[in-house]
């Protein structure tokens, strides 16, 4: 089953999210009030490690396990990056969770977060519905 390796990576990610308290509402409040380095350290060091890894993959032309060249999809700018970004920021500070932590919290037994997750799915659905009418 070729998808099981992604399940395993997700499992590792979920464990890290809980153990580093990224999933904690309190940690997110601390971050947005600039009262701790913790979250900035996590996101910042994750970016640096990912950046160096991608540079190494490109520099040494490292292939995937099935021998394909690594392709990184390019993102093009649209104003949704700004408007949507601000809206997500509001939601992040209220719920204390971005999408990854929502899944980890539900798995961790915070059953009420299932409602938050369903509401996030509803939000995505409404975006799909209104997409043509929104400024991008």
């Amino acid at each position: 089953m070729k998808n099981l390796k992604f399940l395993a990576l997700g499992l590792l990610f979920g464990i890290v999210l809980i153990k580093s308290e990224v999933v904690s509402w309190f940690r997110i409040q601390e971050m947005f009030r600039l009262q701790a380095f913790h979250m900035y350290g996590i996101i910042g060091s994750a970016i640096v490690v990912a950046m160096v890894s991608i540079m190494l993959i490109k520099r040494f032309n490292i292939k995937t396990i099935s021998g394909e060249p690594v392709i990184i999809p390019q993102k093009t700018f649209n104003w949704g990056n700004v408007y949507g970004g601000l809206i997500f920021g509001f939601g992040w500070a209220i719920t204390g969770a971005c999408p990854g932590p929502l899944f980890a919290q539900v798995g961790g037994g915070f059953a009420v977060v299932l409602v938050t997750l369903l509401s996030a799915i509803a939000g995505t659905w409404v975006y799909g519905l209104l997409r043509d009418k929104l400024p991008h």
Partner: protein
Amino acid sequence: MDFIKQPWSWYVAGPLIGLIVPALLLLGNKAFGISSSLRHICAACLPAGIPFFKYDWKKESWNLFFVAGIMLGGFVAVHYLSNAQPVVINPATTALLQKQGVKDFSDLLPLDIFSFSQLLTLRGFIFIVVGGFLVGFGTRYAGGCTSGHAIMGISSLQWPSLVATCCFMAGGFIMAWFILPHLLAL
């Protein structure tokens, strides 16, 4: 086991999260990102003829396995790898939140806000339901979340992701500093 059961430092957790990016690329040319899974769930369960949800979501099913793994990881970490201590945050944050009306600091989330008994109060509805809606709507409108833009996008030097990440932070600051105190007081 003690060092596993304690909360992990940023310099352990951050690099581990960063390594997921090359792992996904090398295991199958997959770009790190979580919020797309919400779109795939819509496409799978309720496409309703909306063009945005008309695509072959099964081709992206790896992403659904990945988020299922995150759920499983949450279960494993909470039940087997935790010491069940309250989250240690800056005492200044605790004092501020107490003043703003948060009472329960015993768990990862304030259980006096995030619980089924609060769901039908105005405050609980805003934190649990409205907040989640903004996360789902905003991430899709922005084209990604903290993983897809802040980590995957910035680390692959894509400036639209830097713009999006700055807006995530700006939105969070505006909410935390100017609006959240009023919401907590409801």
